[in-house]
């Protein structure tokens, strides 16, 4: 059961927003400060508590890390007392939280729908912008014992990466994906004493010595190998392009399409033209892709969202607009007075 709707009212950057995601790949685009990461964090927190049964308010605090752990700071800032709310839907299941900007503790929030929500747990993964595997040894124990100022997504991704491999034979689709990834990273990932290594013919190479982009692909390999990314899981990936050579974007997007075909719902936030274009070019009949363009309305200044399945209809498209500007200047430089 995939995420079918996300709704906000006076929540973080959003005054009012209602997004209907695709069960396939959801691509979030928009300038900085238009709430792409906020949107993914809410949906991820909702998915995560369906398994862990942690209180939704508590999870939001851990994932957003508002100053002083004050929940009320997640209400959109106004000069007057305000209540904020977030709703996440999976078909008929609805998880809702609302709280006032004065809320300091999780108990002051009103959460509804959590009981039914947790009866249908859903697997989820959030891959943050910063790579964590190379800093993994000792981090989890430190995080569980001390107040470390890290959003919980960083500890969560390590929990998932450390999971042991699935029992039983690997099915054909997963085997194909793992083989493709192994070609890209030139090896397999192993874990020894909480430390990650890339193992190939040359031996074991610790992740700290591996290019950061490769570590990300290694993480994806682990998540597929240990069954975290399976039919029915939800993958959130914030800026997959970070530290990755653009030549690897194509194979990476192909893997995301394969995951989608296996039944994984994908959310990714990107600032990168090549990522967008690879999705457009690699999309086949039957693939489900929705582009969500987040932007500030010229009149109200509030964040709005325009969703479309067609690449050319992404509007506004801050990424393409940047290229349009570069192109216009290049034409003027190349042709001089001929170009108007």
């Amino acid at each position: 059961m995939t995420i079918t709707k996300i709704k906000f009212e006076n929540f973080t950057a959003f005054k009012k927003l209602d997004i209907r995601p695709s069960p396939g790949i959801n691509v979030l685009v928009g300038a900085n400060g238009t709430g792409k990461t906020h949107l993914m964090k809410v949906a991820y927190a909702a998915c995560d508590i369906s398994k862990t049964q942690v209180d939704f308010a508590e999870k939001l605090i851990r994932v957003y890390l508002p100053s002083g752990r004050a929940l009320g700071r997640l209400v959109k800032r106004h000069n007057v007392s305000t209540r904020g709310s977030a709703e996440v839907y999976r078909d008929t299941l609805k998880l809702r939280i609302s709280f006032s900007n004065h809320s300091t503790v999780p108990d002051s929030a009103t959460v509804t729908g959590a009981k039914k929500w947790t009866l249908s747990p859903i697997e989820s993964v959030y891959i943050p912008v910063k790579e964590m595997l190379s800093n993994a040894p000792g981090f989890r124990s430190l995080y569980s014992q001390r107040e470390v100022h890290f959003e919980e997504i960083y500890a969560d991704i390590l929990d998932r990466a450390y999971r042991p491999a699935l029992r039983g034979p690997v099915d054909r689709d997963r085997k194909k994906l793992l083989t493709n990834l192994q070609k890209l990273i030139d090896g397999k990932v192993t874990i020894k004493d909480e430390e990650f290594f890339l193992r190939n013919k040359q031996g074991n190479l610790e992740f700290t010595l591996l290019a950061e982009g490769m570590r990300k692909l290694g993480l994806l390999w682990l998540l597929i190998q240990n069954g975290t990314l399976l039919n029915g899981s939800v993958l959130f990936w914030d800026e997959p392009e970070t530290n990755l050579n653009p030549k690897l974007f194509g194979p990476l997007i192909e893997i995301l399409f394969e995951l989608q075909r296996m039944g994984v719902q994908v959310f990714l936030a990107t600032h990168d033209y090549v990522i967008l274009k690879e999705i457009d070019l690699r999309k086949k009949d039957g693939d489900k892709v929705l582009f969500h363009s987040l932007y500030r309305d010229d009149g109200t200044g509030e964040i709005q969202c325009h969703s479309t399945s067609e690449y050319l209809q992404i509007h506004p498209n801050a990424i393409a607009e940047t290229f349009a500007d570069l192109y216009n200047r290049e034409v003027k430089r190349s042709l001089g007075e001929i170009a108007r």
Partner: protein
Amino acid sequence: MTVLREGTLYLTLPHGVQGRKFDDRNHGLSHCMKAVDFVVEEPDRVLFIEFKDPDHPHANPDDRKAFLEELLIGGKDDDLVRKYRDSFIYRWAENAAEKPISYCVLIAASRLDEAMLLARTEGLKRKLPAEGPASGAWQRQIVAGCSVFNLETWNRHLPQYPVARAAP
């Protein structure tokens, strides 16, 4: 007012500007030299103009897709470069290569966005080449400038040379 035609695309020249179809039967060397579609003479410069028309109403969708895929990986660059250089040599032999020449390429494909046009413009500039060797041995450029357009950006940047599509 001169109107030049390539397939279903019509290029209108402004008053007082001379232009001609360059790759027609008057060329006479098409068995051994390639040629751009049009040569346009302005008072102090020349435009070499090449049209490619993957969006032609009668184009086979598979051919259109194959053309664009090849174009995007630079597979059409060599053909565009050859057309330019052969036309340049032809004009040089005519003793008509004194004015600076700019190369304007129209790829009539609505799917081409500015990022792709920018990439193809840069690819073409590198291969023509727009710059001489690092030694500085070249005393003059073989091309003053070049740009790749789609129909929309052509008409936006070159409104004095409007291109329109007529019914086939």
